[in-house]
């Protein structure tokens, strides 16, 4: 069996159903082996599109995403996607081609030191130097990528290794003395946590992406209901707690709800669950949860105590830890606290001004939320539209937001939506994009059309790089340096050029009919070009490096 055939066989053993890959010189042997394999292969139009699609597939399904790129530029085009998956803890295995072993280090054609380049942005990586190592390395790669705190793993295959002959035996288990994640929470710490929770009067749970990765949404709901603790979400954690639930506070942080930020700031107990105290969440660290004890539950011990001091640290898998906690959970005396929060909800709801005849971005997203009943997978790009989506789409179910949180990668949305739709063919997949972001990977419209994917693309078109413009307006005296996108393409024609459906929407009355029409189309993507008002800002907003209860509320009520 050749090295390339071994790779294919190993992928089958790992039950890989779909690969997102782009061929090239160094991976020719692998593509020859794939020609006969019964693994679905999706070819993007750019390697970056391929890896973001694998990432979107992984987030939507919970399975490990797999992508392939050739050596040199193919591999370096994966770098943004790898960093993106690393920041958001997405399980990915990236397979790259490399120049033959004897040419490594000679600056050969299409040579790049991709293991060196990706060392700081992968959970682990490998350069294969012997065909015999292939089965073990692939087994380990999938194990490392998908267990503990998930993340991307890269394997670099020199071309001659792919062509070499060897004996294939797939290992049944992995033995790595340097990698042993902790899954069960420490009993003593859990008892301490439950004592602290019982004594709390103003508790708040903050649920992050770890809850979704662990599949712990049921346990989170139970703990919150039994103990009567309100729940706020990070961007990555949206969908882990139903937004329509009376105890939901929506998102916190820079563009979080006023009531979430007030509740967190005034809490006497902050329970961080599968979240990592990112600066967009905490604002000014020194004034974050000033009067609260902190319980932090995470599978990655390095996250605990990294940004803020913790009173009760619990390392473990969220689902297991919450199950352990529920057994001992009692109702907190939080009634007064919850009614205070309900008052804030009344007083400071998410809102926006809307004059007649204006097409507002928030309105578009509200209507998408309404027409889908929260029952859709929503991919986003990065910027204002992403924050409006987090605010105005009612995320009810896990794995329904597919968004680049940590790295903030513009151009992530379209390929990620493709991956999500391929992984979940029966779900409605929306992409909410900006007119800036969509242009960073719009070539993937070809992939979506070719694969007959009925993705509904809503471009929130304000003719600006809106979020940067907003910061220029607020903090740089409206000096709109290089943020105008006045000369964007005609997105309707662009859609049609690729064989997709294009619809332009310029008034509020046209929004619902356009969405209804889009929902009818089942065999190709629809691009809806929403020409919204151009200088709308995202509010609430906490200015950078301010405490999160110092909030700009904008023009809204």
């Amino acid at each position, binding site marked *: 069996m050749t090295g390339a055939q071994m790779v294919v066989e190993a992928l089958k053993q790992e039950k890989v159903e779909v690969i997102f890959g782009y061929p090239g010189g160094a991976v020719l042997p692998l593509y020859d082996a794939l020609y006969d394999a019964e693994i679905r292969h999706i070819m993007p139009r750019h390697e970056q599109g391929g890896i973001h699609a694998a990432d979107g597939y992984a987030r939507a399904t919970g399975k490990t995403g797999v992508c392939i790129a050739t050596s040199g530029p193919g591999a370096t085009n994966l770098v943004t996607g790898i960093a993106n998956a690393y920041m958001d803890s997405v399980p990915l295995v990236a397979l790259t081609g490399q120049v033959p072993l004897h040419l490594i280090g000679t600056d050969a054609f299409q040579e790049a030191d991709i293991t060196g380049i990706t*060392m700081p942005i992968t959970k682990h990586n490998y350069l294969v130097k012997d065909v015999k190592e292939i089965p073990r390395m692939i087994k380990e790669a999938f194990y490392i990528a998908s267990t*503990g705190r998930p993340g991307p793993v890269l394997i670099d295959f020199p071309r001659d290794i792919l062509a070499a002959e060897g004996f294939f035996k797939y290992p049944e288990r992995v033995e790595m003395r340097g990698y042993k*994640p902790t899954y069960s929470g420490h009993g003593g710490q859990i008892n301490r946590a439950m004592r602290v929770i019982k004594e709390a009067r103003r508790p708040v749970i903050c649920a992050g992406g770890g809850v979704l990765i662990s599949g712990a949404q049921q346990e989170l709901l139970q703990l919150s209901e039994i103990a009567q603790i309100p729940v706020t979400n990070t961007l990555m954690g949206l969908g882990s707690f139903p937004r329509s639930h009376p105890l939901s506070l929506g998102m916190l942080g820079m563009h979080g709800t006023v009531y979430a930020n007030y509740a967190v700031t005034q809490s006497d107990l902050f329970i961080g669950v599968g979240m990592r105290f990112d600066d967009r969440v905490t604002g000014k660290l020194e004034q974050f949860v000033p009067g609260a004890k902190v319980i932090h539950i995470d599978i990655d011990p390095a996250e605990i105590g990294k940004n803020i001091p913790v009173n009760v640290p619990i390392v473990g898998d969220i689902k297991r830890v919450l199950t352990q906690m529920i057994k001992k959970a009692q109702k907190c005396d939080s009634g007064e606290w919850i009614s205070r929060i309900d008052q804030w909800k009344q007083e400071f709801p998410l809102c926006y001004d809307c004059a007649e005849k204006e097409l507002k971005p928030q309105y578009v997203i509200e209507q998408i939320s309404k027409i889908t009943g929260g029952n859709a997978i929503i991919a986003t790009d990065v910027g204002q539209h992403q924050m409006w989506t987090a605010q105005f789409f009612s995320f009810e179910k896990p794995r329904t937001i597919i968004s680049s949180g940590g790295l903030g990668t513009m151009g992530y949305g379209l390929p990620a939506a493709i991956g999500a739709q391929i992984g979940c063919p029966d779900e409605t997949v929306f992409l909410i994009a900006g007119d800036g972001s969509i242009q960073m990977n719009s070539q993937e419209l070809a992939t979506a059309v070719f694969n007959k994917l009925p993705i509904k693309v809503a471009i929130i078109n304000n003719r600006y790089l809106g979020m940067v413009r907003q910061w220029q307006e607020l903090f740089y005296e409206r000096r709109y340096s290089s943020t105008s996108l006045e000369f964007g393409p005609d997105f309707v024609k662009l859609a049609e050029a690729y064989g997709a459906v294009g619809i332009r929407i310029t008034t509020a009355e046209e929004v619902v009919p356009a969405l209804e029409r889009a929902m009818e189309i089942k065999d190709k993507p629809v691009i809806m070009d929403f020409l919204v008002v151009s200088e709308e800002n995202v509010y609430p907003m906490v200015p950078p490096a301010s405490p999160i209860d110092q909030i700009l509320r904008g023009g809204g009520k």
Partner: protein
Amino acid sequence: MKHVLAVIVENKPGVLTRVAGLFSRRGFNIDSIAVGETEVPELSRMTILVEGDENTIEQVIKQLNKLVDVVKISNLTNESTVNRELALIKVKAEPHMRAELTQLAETFRAKIVDVSLDSLIVEVTGDVEKLKAFELLLRHFGIQELARTGKISLMRGVKYIKMNGEGRKNG
């Protein structure tokens, strides 16, 4: 404050890069790093001197632990340890200065390991302070070249770092 970490790692290509890269990426400061094989040939031991407060060191240890090739980390800072560093120093030495240099070397239990017409190489081992003091004295004669190994440490007495299995590791 300076901390001494003994880090047991897989003896594989690229491991030093992973460890060193992690320090620079996370903004930790390495004072010195010494690497060599251990009594178990597939494992290497890195002795790392790192500057930082307790929180920083805790982060350093936790982040290092996340590297798949790192098997075990021991913080030797507050342990009773034997510490050594080795330096080779080439000093300018006209024939008439040799006697004085030899005497000086003896005081520091250093060895003269190479002699040429107008220079000699001294080998000295000891803790960091001793090496510093010796270097200062030799400067007076004119140091042409100096190479140091970085510090290595072992715990005194019955304590030792068990190589296999014992270290708690986390993903």
